[in-house]
């Protein structure tokens, strides 16, 4: 029987002929933790009476969620992480390096065909470069660090095919918001997504990361794509490791195949307080906005800021509205400076914060006030997500956020293109 990409990668890493539903113990190629989860992972590691990690070269810890530290409690966690990394000779990306899900592929830690875990739910991001990567909790990370392995239930796969060409003003973010709205926040629970189609082939690798990043928002275990030439070139530029790209068999068995015509979409918005509460932008045009945010592991890449800069060039963020930007990594920030996007955005009124998660998870860098509306390029709009349960978060593409902060209300980006 033919196999999906997920079944093949889990077979390769467990030495078993693995099919959906099987439980396998598999060898990990890489694993990551971040500052919100590594503290607990270190506690579990110690409780397991472990002395040494199995292979320090396969682990990285990234301080990105509350970085630099906003308070004493976080400082204590950061200190504990730094000491553990030094003790175990683990690669540490300290404050300002960037978001874990940008760092891991960008610094070459994963390549096509790999099996990767991360103590962060958006670890599924690397699916865009043909990696089976999935989020796990802190104790699973501790077990992975100690043994180099983890157990997995081999998932069924839901295949999503995007036909047609992306219209002007429609981006990868709009595709994934639309899909989550269609199938719901638990539409792919325990399944792998395999994402393909002409609209994907046309996209840059950076744009593809946005889609894989949000696979978890419909409950999926991973959001994996094939390794085409664009992926192989991207990986060759970022990693010295040898890729082992995996294709699905022609007769692979899918739980379901969904076809979506990309050419027919309009810009998408996820309304408060769930990611699957989506609509076309026209339904909410005119909603007042007090804060815009462009950044995160979903949409904090060079191309995202270029799109925003093109819209904001020579314009200003509206009075009564703020715009915060956070490059997903230091390298991206440097590229933005070279490219001019950084200057354009700051001139338009944007406030640039440290490369990292920025205000995404509500610990610092722009907590909204009661009753305020935020439009953000992040992946979650849960109540309280940005630190205040009495504020409202709308999710959109960088273009829609840029257009909206010009007007101080939700706007259709297509009129600015």
């Amino acid at each position, binding site marked *: 029987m033919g196999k999906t990409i997920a079944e093949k990668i889990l077979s390769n890493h467990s030495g078993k002929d693995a099919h959906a539903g099987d439980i396998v113990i598999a060898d990990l190629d890489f694993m990551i933790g971040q500052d919100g989860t590594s503290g607990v992972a270190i506690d579990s590691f110690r409780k397991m009476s472990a002395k040494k990690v199995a292979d320090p070269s396969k682990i990285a810890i990234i301080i990105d969620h509350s970085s630099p530290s906003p308070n004493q409690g976080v400082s204590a966690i950061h200190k504990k992480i730094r000491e553990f990394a030094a003790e175990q000779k683990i690669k540490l990306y300290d404050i300002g390096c960037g978001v874990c899900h940008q760092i891991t592929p960008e610094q070459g830690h994963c390549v096509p065909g790999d099996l990767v875990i991360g103590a962060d739910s958006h670890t599924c991001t690397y699916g865009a470069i043909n990696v089976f990567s999935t989020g796990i909790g802190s104790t*699973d990370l501790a077990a992975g660090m100690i043994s180099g392995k983890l157990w997995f239930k081999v998932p069924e796969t839901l295949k999503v095919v995007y036909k047609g060409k992306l219209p002007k003003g429609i981006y990868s973010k709009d595709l994934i918001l639309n899909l989550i709205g269609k199938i719901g926040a638990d539409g792919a629970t325990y399944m792998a997504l395999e994402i393909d189609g002409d609209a994907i082939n046309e996209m840059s690798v950076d744009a593809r990361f946005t889609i894989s990043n949000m696979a978890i928002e419909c409950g999926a275990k991973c959001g994996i794509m094939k390794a085409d030439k664009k992926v192989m070139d991207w990986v060759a530029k970022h990693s010295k490791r040898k890729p082992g790209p995996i294709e699905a068999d022609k007769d692979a068995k899918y739980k379901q195949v969904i076809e979506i015509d990309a050419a027919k979409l309009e810009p998408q918005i996820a309304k408060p307080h769930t990611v699957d509460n989506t609509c076309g932008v026209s339904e909410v045009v005119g909603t007042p906005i007090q804060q815009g945010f462009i950044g995160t592991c979903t949409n904090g890449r060079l191309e995202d800021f270029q799109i925003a800069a093109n819209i904001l060039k020579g314009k200003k963020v509206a009075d009564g509205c703020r715009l915060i930007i956070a490059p997903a990594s230091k390298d991206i920030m440097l590229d933005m400076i070279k490219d001019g996007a950084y200057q354009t955005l700051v001139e338009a009124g944007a406030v640039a914060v440290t490369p990292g998660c920025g205000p995404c998870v509500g610990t610092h860098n722009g907590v909204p006030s009661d009753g305020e509306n935020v439009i953000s390029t992040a992946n979650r709009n849960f109540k309280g997500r940005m*630190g205040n349960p009495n504020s409202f978060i709308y999710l959109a593409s960088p273009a829609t956020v840029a257009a909206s902060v010009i007007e101080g209300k939700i706007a259709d980006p297509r009129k600015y293109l």
Partner: protein
Amino acid sequence: MIQKGKARTFPNHPNDINTDYIISGRYKFKIQDPNELATHVMEDLDPNFFKRVEKGDFIVAGNNFGCGSSREQAPMAIKYANISAVIANSFARIFYRNCFNLGLPAIEADTSGIEEGDELELDMDAGILKNKTKNKEIKIAPVPKTMQTLLADGGLVEHFKKHDGFKV
């Protein structure tokens, strides 16, 4: 073993209770003591939740409980609030895994008829959840073998210590 306690429900928000609601990012990043974390459990959905829980109570919810982030602080806060198990129609996968890793049962069952304060009895061996208040028996979904092993060992930490690695 039979566990007894009251149902603690979220009638205004039964489905898609995410990990941000279970324990907000504002706390998980700065509080390391699980007992202190527990005092903030479910706070954004119900500011009095921690106060109304009695030892052994069950959280009872609808679909997709625990969706969102991978934070293990979510099941940890529930466990340290003295909740004995979470019972829901369905769970998000990372949360589900984290529960068993911490030795907290996550039980799939049809929770539609259960109301706040109902007296429940959970018998995992028999696969039965009794609602004493409503005088009803509900069949629970079988707990996968891997999860049973982890629970029996008292969570993944103890499992690892006992077997010196995975034995699932």
